[in-house]
């Protein structure tokens, strides 16, 4: 079953949703992005099923903003992040960075883009070679991208350590000698080594303890200000995303269901899913239970998304039309887009 009829991608693409009237040209821009995976393919012909991990997503990332991507498992937020950094090939739509189309760019064409777009992962130790010292890991990045040479390298290594709040003598240690929080700092240093403009961070703090998580969240904020960075910050923890993001996009089963300016979106969600998600989070800061919307059931399999609105099977407000017609992400105010037939007031 095809989850949606994908007509002409150009006409299907919603208007680029801007941050504000004065917002500059977007740094990165995706139009009708599609990423599919084939699962369960056997020797039986036609046995594979297509999973739309990213299903027709359009979004812009503006300079100096932090765009938070939130969603539960299966929402496709990590896949979207990997498409934006072109770690994944894209199956449909277009992706451009600084006005250049990089949808189909090959490794050579991507090299200058990789210098400007970096990715940070949940588990930095998986991407750090255990037999190499921090110094070698970072110096290699500098050399590959010809960022510094000779004595300049040593200076830069020191700068990077200062930036992420690690002592310079840690350069001579191996990854296993660090705690989880320190390893994430090294992961950040490695991303910063190439002096990127855009950093896509995929659940960068979710493996950390609360007290350490707060340090890294603060580090992200500090670095943005000092280095004029732009972030796409992917996380399932809505409180962390609220803390770091200027704008938020909420994902459900491969689609963006709502996007808007952070404070307004958290204060007055327009999509029933956003509202339910926010109400489901247990909060220490204002104890005394608010009116909780307890969603029934669980997220449907992305292999077999519901017809019409993907959220219709769990939505307390669903009407007949919701089960038949898939709502398009459209603007309900200057800074808010919602994909819902009956957005909340």
């Amino acid at each position: 079953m095809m989850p949606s009829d994908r007509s002409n991608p150009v006409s299907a693409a919603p208007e680029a949703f801007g941050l504000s009237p004065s917002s500059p040209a977007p740094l990165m821009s995706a139009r009708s992005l599609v990423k599919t995976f084939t699962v369960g393919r056997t020797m039986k012909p036609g046995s594979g099923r297509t999973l739309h991990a990213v299903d027709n997503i359009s979004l812009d990332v503006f300079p100096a903003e932090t765009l938070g991507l939130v969603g539960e498992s299966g929402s496709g937020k990590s896949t979207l992040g990997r498409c934006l950094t072109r770690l994944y090939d894209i199956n449909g739509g277009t992706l451009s960075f600084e006005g250049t189309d990089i949808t189909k760019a090959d490794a050579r064409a991507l090299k200058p883009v990789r210098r400007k777009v970096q990715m940070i992962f949940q588990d930095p130790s998986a991407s750090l070679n255990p037999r190499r010292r921090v110094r070698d890991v970072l110096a290699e990045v500098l050399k590959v991208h010809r960022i510094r040479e000779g004595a300049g390298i040593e200076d830069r290594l020191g700068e990077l350590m200062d930036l992420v709040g690690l002592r310079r003598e840690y350069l001579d240690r191996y990854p296993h000698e660090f705690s989880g929080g320190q390893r994430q700092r090294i992961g950040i240093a490695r991303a910063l080594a190439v002096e990127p403009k855009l950093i896509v961070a995929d659940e960068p703090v979710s493996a950390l303890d609360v007290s350490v998580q707060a340090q890294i969240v603060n580090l992200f904020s500090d670095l943005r200000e000092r280095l004029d960075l732009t972030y796409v910050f992917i996380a399932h923890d809505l409180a962390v995303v609220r803390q770091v993001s200027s704008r938020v996009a909420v994902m459900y089963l491969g689609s963006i269901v709502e996007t808007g300016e952070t404070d307004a979106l958290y204060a007055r969600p327009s999509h029933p899913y956003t509202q339910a998600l926010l109400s489901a989070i247990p909060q220490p800061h204002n104890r005394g239970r608010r009116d909780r919307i307890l969603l029934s059931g669980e997220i449907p399999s992305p292999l077999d998304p519901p017809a019409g609105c993907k959220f219709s099977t769990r939505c307390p407000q669903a009407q007949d039309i919701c089960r038949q017609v898939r709502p398009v992400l459209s603007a309900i105010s200057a800074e808010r887009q919602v994909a819902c037939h009956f957005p909340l007031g």
Partner: protein
Amino acid sequence: MVFAVLQRLGQMLFVMVGISALVFLIFFATPGSDPAARLAGRNASPETVEAIRKDFGFDRPLPVQYVIMMNRLFVTQDLTSFVNRGLRIVPAVAQAAPVTLSLVAGAAVLWVIGGILVGVVAALARDTLLDRGLMVLALIGVSMPVYWLGEVMNLITQSRFHDTIFFSWVPSLGYKPLLTDPWGWFKTLIIPWFTLAALYIGIYGRVLRANLVEAYQEDFIRTARAKGLSPARVMVRHALRTSLIPFVTMFGLDFGVLVGGSALLTEVVFGLNGVGRLTYQALLNLDLPMVLGTVMYASFFVVVANALVDVVYVLIDPRVRES
């Protein structure tokens, strides 16, 4: 389900045909040598060579040669050895197969029971002297070459101590058919069984112990203990049950290969005329039709054993059932 079974059978057939084609090409289509001359063996007369060439169609294209060969091997079954004139391939293999099967099947029973015992006891007694002792014994079992162990067994049971009351029951070397003389069959095979099984008890015991120790780290074992189950039940119904999956894989492969002829050394030492020995002699004499026959026989068992492993998987692991 029916489709899956048919698919699996199709795969097996495909593999067998592939092996037969490969073996055929290696033996009969190697450039620079005359297959007819090879088939005829050493010192054959030109007339014989010529007759063979006609007979096997070696003057015709390769695919035709292959079909003729396979037809004679499997359909008319009159492919004969030219080294041992008149020895028909298929009946010869059919005669040797029960010997090998008896040897390997008996040893397999011993090594499965022995391997599970060693593995379970060592895992339960982990890090104690008993565990270390068992692992050292298992290592010794793995390290002893089977021909050496076999000769030592023979030395003890056939000559040195044959006249003591312990080993006077041991019959002389050779095979006694199961159907005509079951008790003799058993007595002649019991020493070979233990000899062949020693290596595998060692391997299986060590692997199973490692799997069990790993299984005990699993959450579901903690759950099982938290349910208030007895240690024996936790071991047998939970740890052992899940650890058997790699065990079965190994068993399928080893069993298939051994039945296919890899029990050669044991067969030779104990004078058992099995398939391994048949293959060995055919190779010595460059008896190509015989080699072709035994290779096909061996690949059949390997393929069948693998298919059986898959079936057992479905029985013991519900996760496999769906895919």
